[in-house]
């Protein structure tokens, strides 16, 4: 019995853990999309078959000149080891810092032509660095001019530095990964995104919402698919576990079922009892699984030092419990049917 509960709980824990990662990714992306003043984001159209996610930098200026566009900012993303950790790096021209939605809480912004950098609040805490300190990236020293905060965990555990300096560090000059676009007052986001996509068909795609992102990027879809596949696996494995547990339980209680039949319990009531027990069992396993999942994924993330946003929502808990109960129903039907069909005289003779 306990083993089956553990089995189902582990399945549910996996569903919850993956769900938290997926939800976290969504929330993080949403926050990033809504960050600062950007109305939409331009990224490489990966469906065109291009392996590179980089966009030519001159596209930034071209988009900036398009009708309805107020500002376009090229963003280059990378990462470098700093001490024992890996620091996420965002390359952005100083004039475009407003697009990040970052609030400088200490110090000041960097200058594009100097080896200067600003650290996210969480990164500064983690690296134990303050304004005026330096960090070394690929052998070059960068002075920390400020500390910023966005409220987005992923951005706040990174650092922002001059675009050209980061491109040079990666030997990837004149390339950006994203273009943040801000439109003029009164301009229509849909119209502007359409004209960008029309001008760069197959090359670029625009993302004005999370749905757009999911269409353009398979990554989130892959995580969601994995989550669904694991949910299914959990249902199958958990279901088999429950069937086994309940069959054993029915087997052990053969005589008891014989007594219930002898006192006149109907087939429906006996089936209901076994099915009910199965559902209660899986419901409890579901609760244990939710707790295990939350604790487990938080522990893994903190242990591996990954800057990942984890989001636990009531909907996720409900989904996990619903899956647990479905497993209970599926796993309980056959044993319940078997119990209800037992011949009373044989059941009563059972030792």
């Amino acid at each position, binding site marked *: 019995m306990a083993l089956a509960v553990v089995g189902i709980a582990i399945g549910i824990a996996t569903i919850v853990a993956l769900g938290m990662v997926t939800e976290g990714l969504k929330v993080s992306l949403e926050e990033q999309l809504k960050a600062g003043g950007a109305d939409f984001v331009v990224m490489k159209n990966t469906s065109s078959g291009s392996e590179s996610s980089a966009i030519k930098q001159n596209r930034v200026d071209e988009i900036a000149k398009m009708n309805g566009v107020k500002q376009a900012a090229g963003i280059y993303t990378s990462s470098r080891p700093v001490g024992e950790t890996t620091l996420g790096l965002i390359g952005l021209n100083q004039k475009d810092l407003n697009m990040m939605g970052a609030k400088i809480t200490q110090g000041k912004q960097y200058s594009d032509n100097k080896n200067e950098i600003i650290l996210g609040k969480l990164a500064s805490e983690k690296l134990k660095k303050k304004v005026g300190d330096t960090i070394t990236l690929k052998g070059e020293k960068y002075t920390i001019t400020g500390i910023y905060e966005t409220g987005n965990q992923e951005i706040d555990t990174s650092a922002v530095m001059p675009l050209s300096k980061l491109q040079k560090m990666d030997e990837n000059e004149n390339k950006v990964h994203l273009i943040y676009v801000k439109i003029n007052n009164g301009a229509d986001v849909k119209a502007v995104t359409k004209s960008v996509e029309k001008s760069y068909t197959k090359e670029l795609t625009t993302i004005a919402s999370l749905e757009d992102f999911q269409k353009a990027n398979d990554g989130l879809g892959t995580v969601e698919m994995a989550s669904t596949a694991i949910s299914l696996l959990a249902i199958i494995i958990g279901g088999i576990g429950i069937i086994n547990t309940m069959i054993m339980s029915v087997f052990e209680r053969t005589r008891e079922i014989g007594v219930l039949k*002898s*006192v006149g319990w109907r087939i429906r009531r006996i089936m209901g009892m076994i099915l009910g027990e199965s559902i209660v069992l899986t419901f409890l396993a579901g609760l244990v699984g939710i707790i295990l999942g939350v604790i487990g994924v938080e522990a893994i993330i903190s242990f591996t030092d990954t800057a990942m946003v984890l989001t636990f929502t009531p909907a996720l808990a409900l989904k996990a419990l619903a899956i647990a109960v479905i497993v209970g129903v599926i796993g309980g039907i056959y044993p319940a049917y078997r119990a209800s069909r037992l011949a009373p005289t044989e059941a009563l003779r059972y030792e």
Partner: protein
Amino acid sequence: MNSDVIVYEVKTVKNPYERMENVVEIEGLKKSYENGKIKALDGADLKIKKGEFVSIIGPSGSGKSTLLNMLGALDQPDEGKITVSGHDLTKTKDLNHFRSKEIGFIFQLHNLIPNLTVLENVEIPMYESRLSSKKMHERALKLLDYVELQEKASRKPTQLSGGERQRVAIARALANNPSIILADEPTGSLDSKTGQIILQRLKEIHEKEKVTLIMVTHDMNVASMAERTIEVLDGKIKT
């Protein structure tokens, strides 16, 4: 005609149940197991009047328990007719309902459910009645009082003595006011003193509640407490 009346009157003096209706009618009942190799019942005929206390005796394997199971609709005959409390058991579809309404079982090994309390064990048969849980509770307590075990209502069966467990089984058998109590070796696993107390209690219930009591035993002393004894031998009934 007159002589018929006289004979009739003489019979009623000998047997107080003579004018009562039959609660059990069995004709040519046959039951075999293992593809006919073992003939448990081989053309049994029996009539039992309403309110009678009948003991069924016979050696091991004679078919007495099979007969009791047939009377309680726990088993179905291969051939023959069996009518209990007006129900033709070969034709009755809802045998569970029949058992719930008409039959109270007492087994040799009490068959109480170990993880339920004494009170819950007595309540079990009432789930098929239309009583509210409050009424069920009240009735179960009353029945436990009747068998002098109310103070042990919250205990588990494992915390009771053999005699006490069998008294709980009696209370459970009475739960739905059955018309017939079927007792299969009710004193078989008890010492003789406790067995006598249980038998006395069963006899009291039979007299007070006017319930038909059919008891299977292999002990002649136990059987002698009944008003009528029938013997099952080689699957046939000898009265």
